[in-house]
C-alpha cells in the first residue's frame, strides 16, 4: 500500500506508541481488503461505548489509551452509552454499572471525543455532505450516511473507527470507491407503507434476503428522514446492508444502472411477516420508542398521541442529548413527561442493562430493537406500530 512520508513516520513511531500501533492496524486492514492508500476522514463515529458491550476489557483498553496521552485528530462522536448521563439514578440504573460507564466516558473525553452518544449523529450536529469520507461504526448510521447523505464509509468495528480517529485516515477500499456503490439487487415495493415502523418491518425482511447486497428500491413514495432511518437500520440488523438506493429519493439512485439485476418483490405480506415473526411476547411492561434515536419530528408525533392521557406502564423514548435538549426548550419534553413518559438520552434499550432492571416484555416499534433485545437483554418483545403500542399502555 502506498503511504505518504507523514504516514510512514506514524508507522515508525514518531507520533508515539499509540499512533504507531493504531496506524499499523489500519495498514493491515487495508492490506486485508486490498486498499491502495489511505484517505483522510472528516469524522469518526466509534462503537463499543456501553460498559455492557465492552466490559472490563474495553474499559481498560480505553483508559490505557487515554493514559498514554492519545488524542483524536478529527471530529469524533460516540455510539450510545449504557445509561442516560442525567437521569440514570432516577430511572433505576445500577450504581456499579454507572460507575464503570462514567469511567469509559471519561476516557473518551480525555481522548478528545465529543460525548455525543448517539446512533444518529446526523440528527445531532454531524451532517456529512455528499462524497465526504468517514469512518463510522454504528451500522444504522453507516447505512444512513452512505445511502441518504451520499457520504462514504465502510462499516467499521469499534477498534478500527477509533484507529481512524487517532490517525485521521482510513484505508481506501469498499464503499469509499465509486465502483463498489452500485446496486446489486432490485427490490420492487408494492402497496402502501405507513410510518417508520412499516419501513422497519420491510427493511428487516429485505435485509434477511439481501445479506451483504446493495438493494435498489423501486416503488417507495414519500419516505422522509425517519422512514429511511428505520429502513436502513433494520436492513443492517438482519443483514449486512451498509448502502441502499431508493428511486427518486436518495442522491445516488439516479446515477446507477439497474438493468439485469436480480429482482425481489415485496409488500404488505412481508411487512406483516416481520411484525409477527419478531414478536415473542404479549403484554409489554415497558414500551421503548426511538431505535434508532428519535428525531424531533418523531418526538413531536409521539407527544401528540399522548396528549390529554396518561401511561399506565413506563414509556421510554430514546434519543440523542441534543434532541432531548431541544425537546426541553420547545416544551415537548414537558408534554411527554406530563403524560407519564420519559425522554431518555445517551442510551437505548439494547445497550442498557435492562436485564437487571426487572422488565420482562418490551414493546418496540423497531425491528432492530426487536431483533437484539431477546438475546442481549433476555426479554420478550412485542414489535408493532407506535400507535398500537401506546394504545395498550394508555389509560
Amino acid at each position, binding site marked *: 500500500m502506498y503511504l505518504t512520508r507523514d504516514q510512514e513516520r506514524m508507522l515508525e513511531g514518531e507520533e508515539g506508541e499509540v499512533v504507531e*500501533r493504531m496506524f*499499523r*492496524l489500519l495498514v*493491515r*486492514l487495508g492490506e*486485508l481488503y486490498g486498499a491502495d492508500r489511505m484517505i483522510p476522514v472528516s469524522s469518526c463515529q466509534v*462503537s*463499543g461505548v456501553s460498559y455492557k*458491550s*465492552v*466490559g*472490563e*476489557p*474495553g474499559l*481498560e*483498553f480505553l483508559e*490505557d489509551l487515554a493514559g498514554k496521552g492519545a488524542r483524536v485528530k478529527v471530529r469524533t462522536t460516540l455510539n450510545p452509552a449504557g445509561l442516560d448521563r442525567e437521569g440514570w439514578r432516577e430511572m433505576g440504573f445500577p450504581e456499579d454499572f454507572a460507575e464503570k460507564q462514567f469511567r469509559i466516558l471519561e476516557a473518551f473525553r480525555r481522548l478528545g471525543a465529543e460525548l455525543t452518544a448517539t446512533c444518529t449523529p446526523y440528527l445531532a450536529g454531524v451532517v456529512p455532505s455528499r462524497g465526504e469520507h468517514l469512518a463510522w*461504526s454504528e451500522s444504522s448510521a453507516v447505512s444512513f450516511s452512505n445511502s441518504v447523505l451520499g457520504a462514504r464509509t465502510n462499516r467499521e*468495528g*469499534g*477498534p*478500527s473507527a477509533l*484507529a481512524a480517529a487517532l490517525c485521521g485516515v482510513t484505508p481506501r477500499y469498499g464503499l469509499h470507491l465509486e465502483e463498489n456503490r452500485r446496486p446489486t439487487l432490485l427490490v420492487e415495493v408494492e402497496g402502501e407503507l405507513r410510518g417508520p415502523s412499516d419501513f422497519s418491518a420491510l427493511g428487516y425482511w429485505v435485509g434477511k434476503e439481501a445479506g451483504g447486497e446493495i438493494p435498489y428500491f423501486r416503488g417507495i413514495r414519500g419516505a422522509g428522514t425517519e422512514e429511511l432511518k428505520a429502513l436502513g437500520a433494520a436492513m443492517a440488523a438482519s443483514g449486512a446492508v451498509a448502502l441502499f438506493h431508493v428511486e427518486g429519493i436518495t442522491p445516488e439512485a439516479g446515477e446507477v444502472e439497474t438493468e439485469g439485476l436480480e429482482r425481489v418483490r415485496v409488500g404488505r405480506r412481508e411487512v406483516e411477516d416481520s411484525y409477527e415473526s419478531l414478536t415473542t411476547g404479549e403484554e409489554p411492561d415497558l414500551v421503548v420508542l426511538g431505535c434508532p434515536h428519535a428525531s424531533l419530528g418523531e418526538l413531536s408525533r409521539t407527544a401528540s398521541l399522548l396528549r390529554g392521557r396518561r401511561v399506565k406502564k413506563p414509556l421510554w423514548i430514546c434519543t440523542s442529548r441534543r434532541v432531548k435538549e431541544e425537546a426541553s426548550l420547545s416544551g415537548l419534553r414537558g408534554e411527554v413527561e406530563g403524560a407519564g413518559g420519559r425522554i431518555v438520552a445517551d442510551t437505548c434499550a439494547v445497550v442498557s442493562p435492562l436485564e437487571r432492571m426487572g422488565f420482562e416484555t418490551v414493546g418496540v416499534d423497531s425491528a432492530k430493537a426487536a431483533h437484539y433485545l431477546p438475546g442481549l437483554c433476555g426479554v420478550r418483545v412485542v414489535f408493532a406500530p407506535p400507535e398500537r403500542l401506546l394504545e395498550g399502555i394508555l389509560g
Partner: protein
Amino acid sequence: MNPGKARGEALVSRSPLSFYGGVDPKTGVVVERGHELQGKSVAGKILVFPRGKGSTVGSYVIYALKKNGVAPLAVVNEETEPIVAAGVILADIPCVDGVDLSQLETGDLVEVDADRGRVEVLRKGGKPQGF
C-alpha cells in the same frame, strides 16, 4: 500479519473462535459453551484456529488477555479477519495468517516466525489421529 517470534506448544481448534464471550479475559480459559476448546487455557500457547467470529469487542478481549498475562504466545490462522487482526496488533502478539492448519495438532511444539510468515513444527506431540 503481525511481526514477532515465538516458540511453544500448540493449542489447535478446527472451528472459529469468538473472543468476546468465548474467552475469559482474566484467566485465558475458553468458556464458549460447546466449543471444542471449552475449559482449555490459551495462556502461553501457540493458539491455532481458522478464523475469529462474533463481536468486534473481541479485539479488546485479546488486548486484555495480554495485559492480564494470559495471552497466547502467538496466533496462527487460516484467515485473520478484522477482529483478530485488530486484537493481535493492539496487544502486540505475533500472528501469521494464510496457514494450512491441517498439519498442526494440539501438543505439537511449534516455532512461529511472524516476520517471515513462517510456522514450523519442531516436534510432533499431539495424540495420534483417530485415537
